[in-house]
């Protein structure tokens, strides 16, 4: 069943990606061998993925949402007002939801991937995990956000992934895996965690001397995604993200993180 679900996921990804459109400069993976020039008007996201035993190498990758600016929201609202059916309005004029193409890595060591992405400066949410334009697991039940400043490389640390159904050997995922096969719905349900960057985190040699800052992670409350076959929450991060039952805790402010349910 595991293999079948994974094949279905990849198959659907190929169907979906064929129809996708990606603005050329919104979210650009910088590949190995390409020159790395830090532009003052762009932000850069640096992260590592975990080992291939968690199947990341097959293309299940993080999905990031950039929180729209006020100007973008005004543009969106204006277009929505002009639409025939505002309740089902889908806007393609701006892209702020991005899945990463792990094949376009800065480094491809045997046990994972190192990604460097040039993006628009702003506030980002780790929205879930998917493949191409298919969201497999939404982090709808709790996740983190961070700011990506212009002219800087924001180091997200290591993004860890494994199946939620089976026990994971990855320390950060032990408490959120081994849940049994029935957590898999249409697709495999993924469990994920973040190991924030610290002094021991390896920096790619090509980035030596560049302005690198660790991500200022903050807890983000629950939200509903209309294209999520599976739902989960990011594993707790000491000092950043915690849970009390179903409540997401912001351990920086020591308060409950606000949920982002529909406001319409």
């Amino acid at each position: 069943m595991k293999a079948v679900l994974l094949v279905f996921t990849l198959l659907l990804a190929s169907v979906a990606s064929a129809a996708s459109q990606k603005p050329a400069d919104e979210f650009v993976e910088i590949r190995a061998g390409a020159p790395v020039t830090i532009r003052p008007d762009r932000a850069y996201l640096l992260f590592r993925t975990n080992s291939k035993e968690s199947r990341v190498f097959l293309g299940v990758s993080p999905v990031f949402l950039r929180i729209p600016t006020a100007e973008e929201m005004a543009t969106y609202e204006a277009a929505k007002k002009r639409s025939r059916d505002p309740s089902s309005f889908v806007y393609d004029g701006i892209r702020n939801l991005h899945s990463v193409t792990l094949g376009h890595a800065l480094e491809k060591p045997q046990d994972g991937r190192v990604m460097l992405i040039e993006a628009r400066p702003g506030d980002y949410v780790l929205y879930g995990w998917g493949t191409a334009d298919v969201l497999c697991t939404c982090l709808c039940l709790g996740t983190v956000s961070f700011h990506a400043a212009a002219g800087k490389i924001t180091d997200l640390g290591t993004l860890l992934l494994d199946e939620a159904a089976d026990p994971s050997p990855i320390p950060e995922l032990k408490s959120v895996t081994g849940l049994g096969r029935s957590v898999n719905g249409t697709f495999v349900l993924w469990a994920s965690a973040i190991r924030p960057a610290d002094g021991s985190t390896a920096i790619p040699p090509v980035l030596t001397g560049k302005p690198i800052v660790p991500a200022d992670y903050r807890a983000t409350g629950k939200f509903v995604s209309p294209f999520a076959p599976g739902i989960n929450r990011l594993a707790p991060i000491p000092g950043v993200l915690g849970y009390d039952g179903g409540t997401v805790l912001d351990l920086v402010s020591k308060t409950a993180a606000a949920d982002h349910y529909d406001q319409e």
Partner: protein
Amino acid sequence: MRTLAAALVVAAFLQQAAHAQEAPPLPDPAAIAVPDLSGSGNPAVIREGAKYFFFRQEGVAFSKAHADLSECFRFLQPWANVRMNQFVPWVSKPGQRPLPWTNNHGLVGALILGAVQGALQHRDYQAKLRMCMEPRGYVRYGVAEGVWKRVTRLPPEQSIAVQAKIASGPAFGQQVQDK
């Protein structure tokens, strides 16, 4: 393979899991009829517990169970298209892109697609509720398939009310063991 992909895409399109957008008002638990759960200890029911179950938590208040289920039902909304939107407004509800599809597989194809759709809908419903309810301390208890279907096919507000009364009510059957 193409047919299988189409089946899954269509299953997603057809998915009609009951869901609630807003938390329904708290009903009077005395007015809620709970189905007979006395058959839940039957070995056949216990064997199928991972497929058909309701949640329960010792000592939880009806109002708390109702609030938890109401929130978790938000996540049961059907997903119409496997393809993500390019733009998500974040502070308001994103729309869903309709899936253009025509049935080129005739009656047999439609029947197969219907069966696949039902199975996937069931799996997604149970998996989502597990991920939302279990961190809140709820535990699964197996119930007979017929009972499960009767309750889950009720309108969302009624289904939430019945499941909340079961969750806060007396023990029945056995906990689901599928780890």
